[in-house]
């Protein structure tokens, strides 16, 4: 009988300088050839759990470690991570930061060079990896020029080139758009089903993954339990919208995919088709007006003939695939990107960044430079000439008063976004833009953000956010605008715009038809 791929025996681990253990008496077995999901709230210990698989915990991190982890029969405590490189492959969350060399081919070979594999063998393995992950045409390219999905596949190939049978991935799709994520998941699926690999991955965005895995490990406050994916997800109260719906209306088993949900819906209930009018049209004053707007980027026309008006009180979701021009549109409306033709008027004049319009960029961390959260907000106030203004109101609006004296960089990704948003909102600008705010965000922070967006617009402001997160758009937006190839191809209520699209329809729409956006809506109608 084949030994398990990974076995954790009574593993406890505390990081140096930490007061609480990150892992607490963990027992887990991952069988050879399985496709395992590790799931849990942010900060629960998923990353630590994964890094214990190849010895990064504790060799790379230091700390206090007890128990044993055996990977493919080898004791991680007895071997440093570099010795296990041929046994288990580890792929971190942001592949772009983990590349060592420049050309794809060289990157694939790097791991094998480290292990002293002979050149002839290396050549063969590199070719195999290129085929396995569908990278053959990219072999000579510089890794810097690849798209997100391609980078992730290269990272996987590079980690696997040395021949390990076990692949561990930390949130592989969190930085990807829906199409890129699909490609990566399909590749992983192939590896498990056709090539007998064992794949263990941690994921937040369960709607992508839930249907594909065999077994799940739930991590909560350092403790780990296992079961079949539906049960684990249910127990942790996380999951895709269909799972939330299932919990709300008490379906058992809780559905994980759209298909499961349709089956359950047929069996249990059938709400009125095409229910629900759009979430209230606002007819406030026009604050931002773009007229025949065109913008260029590196000699290419990125925005064409954009006519757009944003009114007070609106929360607008800007959607579209990567490269459609969402970021450029936000930046042009904010006044930091040059207008090639046409005009942008905010409040009667050209937009003044930081005064009329504020924009929270995709990498929201880019604004954080102070020692405490308070100071961060204060810095904005000072820049606006209001150095002694009150800081706490801004923290309250984002629900982060408790974090006031903490160092922003010590916080979780979601909390950092909230701090950045507070710092940006503190400019007092009525027009707020956010570029992909919910990338990799935990549900709590999303909730705080949604609340803030509503309160900001209730006070007469207007918000537009670019996103791939269909569910967020469905939950909070009053209007949806779809961008493709630099042009607006749809503009209307979320129910109409999202309901009409195959790619961007939220799960509720896919199950129950147009007009149904959120689980809460549906649950209300069903009960």
């Amino acid at each position, binding site marked *: 009988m084949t030994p398990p791929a990974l076995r954790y025996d009574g593993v406890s681990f505390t990081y140096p300088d930490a007061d609480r253990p990150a892992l607490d008496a963990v027992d887990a077995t991952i069988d050879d050839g399985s496709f395992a999901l590790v799931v849990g709230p942010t900060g629960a210990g998923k990353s630590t759990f994964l890094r214990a698989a190849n010895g*990064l915990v504790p*060799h*790379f991190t230091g700390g206090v470690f007890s128990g044993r982890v055996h990977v493919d029969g080898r004791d991680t405590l007895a071997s*440093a991570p*570099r010795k296990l*490189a*041929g046994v288990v492959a*580890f792929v*971190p969350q*942001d592949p*772009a*930061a*983990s*590349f*060592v*060399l*420049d*050309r794809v*081919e060289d990157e694939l*070979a*790097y791991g*094998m*060079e*480290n*292990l*002293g594999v*002979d*050149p002839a063998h*290396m*050549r063969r393995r*590199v070719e195999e990896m290129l085929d396995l992950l569908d990278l053959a045409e*990219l072999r*000579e*390219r*510089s890794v*810097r*020029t*690849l*798209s*997100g999905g391609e980078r992730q596949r290269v990272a996987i190939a590079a*980690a696997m080139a*040395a021949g390990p049978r076990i692949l561990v991935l930390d949130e592989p799709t969190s930085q990807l758009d829906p199409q890129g994520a699909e490609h990566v998941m399909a590749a992983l699926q192939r590896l498990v089903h056709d090539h007998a690999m064992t794949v263990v991955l941690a994921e937040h965005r369960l709607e992508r993954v839930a249907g594909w895995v065999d077994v799940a490990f739930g991590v909560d406050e350092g403790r780990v339990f296992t079961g079949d994916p539906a049960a684990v997800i249910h127990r942790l109260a996380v999951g895709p919208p269909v799972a939330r719906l299932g919990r709300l209306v008490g379906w058992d088993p809780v559905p994980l995919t759209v298909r499961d949900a349709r089956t359950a819906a047929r069996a249990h209930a059938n709400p009125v088709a095409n229910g629900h009018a759009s979430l209230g049209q606002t007819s406030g004053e026009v604050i931002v007006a773009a007229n025949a707007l065109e913008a260029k980027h590196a000699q290419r026309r990125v925005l064409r003939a954009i006519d757009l008006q944003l009114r007070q009180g609106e929360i607008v979701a800007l959607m579209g695939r*990567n490269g459609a021009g969402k970021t450029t549109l936000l*930046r042009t409306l904010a006044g*930091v990107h040059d207008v090639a033709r046409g005009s942008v008027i905010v409040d009667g004049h050209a937009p003044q*960044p930081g005064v009329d*319009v*504020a*924009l929270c*960029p995709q*990498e929201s961390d*880019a*604004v*954080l*430079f102070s020692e405490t959260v308070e100071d961060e907000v204060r*810095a904005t106030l000072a*820049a*606006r000439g209001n150095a002694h203004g009150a800081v706490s109101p801004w923290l309250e609006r984002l629900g982060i008063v408790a974090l006031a004296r903490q160092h922003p*960089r010590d916080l979780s990704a979601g909390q950092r976004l909230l701090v950045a948003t507070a710092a940006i909102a*503190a400019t007092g600008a009525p027009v707020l833009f956010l570029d992909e705010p919910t990338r990799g965000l935990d549900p709590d922070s999303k909730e705080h953000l949604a609340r803030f967006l509503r309160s900001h617009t209730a006070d007469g402001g207007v918000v537009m956010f670019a996103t791939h997160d269909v569910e967020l758009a469905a939950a909070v937006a009053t209007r949806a605008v779809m961008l493709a190839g630099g042009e607006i191809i749809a503009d209307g209520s979320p129910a109409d715009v999202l309901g009409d699209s195959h790619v961007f329809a939220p799960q509720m729409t896919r199950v129950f038809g147009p007009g149904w956006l959120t689980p809460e809506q549906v649950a209300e109608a069903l009960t």
Partner: protein
Amino acid sequence: MTSTGVASQTRRLGFHPGAWICWSTCAGIVAFVTTDPVYLLLLWAVAWFVYASHRSAGATAASFRIFVLAGVLALIVRVALVFLGTVNAANVAFAAREGLRLATILVVFGTFNAVTDPFAVVRLAPRRFHEPALAAALALSIAPRTVASVQTVREAQRLRGINVSPLRSLPALAVPVLERGMEDALTLAESMDARGHGGGRRTRYRPQPFTPAAATIAASAALAAGTFLSASFGGWAELHPASLARPEADPLLLVAIAVLAVPGMLKGERA
């Protein structure tokens, strides 16, 4: 970010960098041992010819012009220094020739920089220096990310009302860039550790072969340098003409310099 065309991003492999290092060292030696303007100016032409035939598509190609400019500047400075002492025609001519020599060395290295690919040079590093060489390669590949980071941060700060300029609010620019770099360093170190870095004996994937063409370049350059060195030690030709005399041009030495143009006549390796 979407994929773009292949052609603009592939790397062309020129000759083995070792051949170029040999060539530029030898050409540098030739320039070093003489102040005869005939030889030096001919060497300029040769360097330009080799540059024109093999300049890489990368940014380093622009450095040729910079080196030429630096050379001219050095020449001017050298001549200007004469005016601090006794000024006469002989001294000025002498200074001009010394300046020309220095400028020629710079032009030779201008060619070297323009024809080599920085990554290829780093890849050459012997196993013993693998880690510093890797660090250098990393610095090269991460640099564009850092530059992009600076632009992102500057714009992000502007959008919240903080205008960063070299003297104002510099921490608002420097700290986020550094922090992001540090996070990247952590991810990178983890990844390297997980992929076996530092685990003993290394092998090399597809090391660039030292082709006969590269060997020809190296050998011919060595020949040229050898000829000049022999003239320098053996004294069978005048390498340093007296100040105002007509410079000589020994035919054998002229041929030696012409031999340095060999790389320009060979075709580059696979594109």
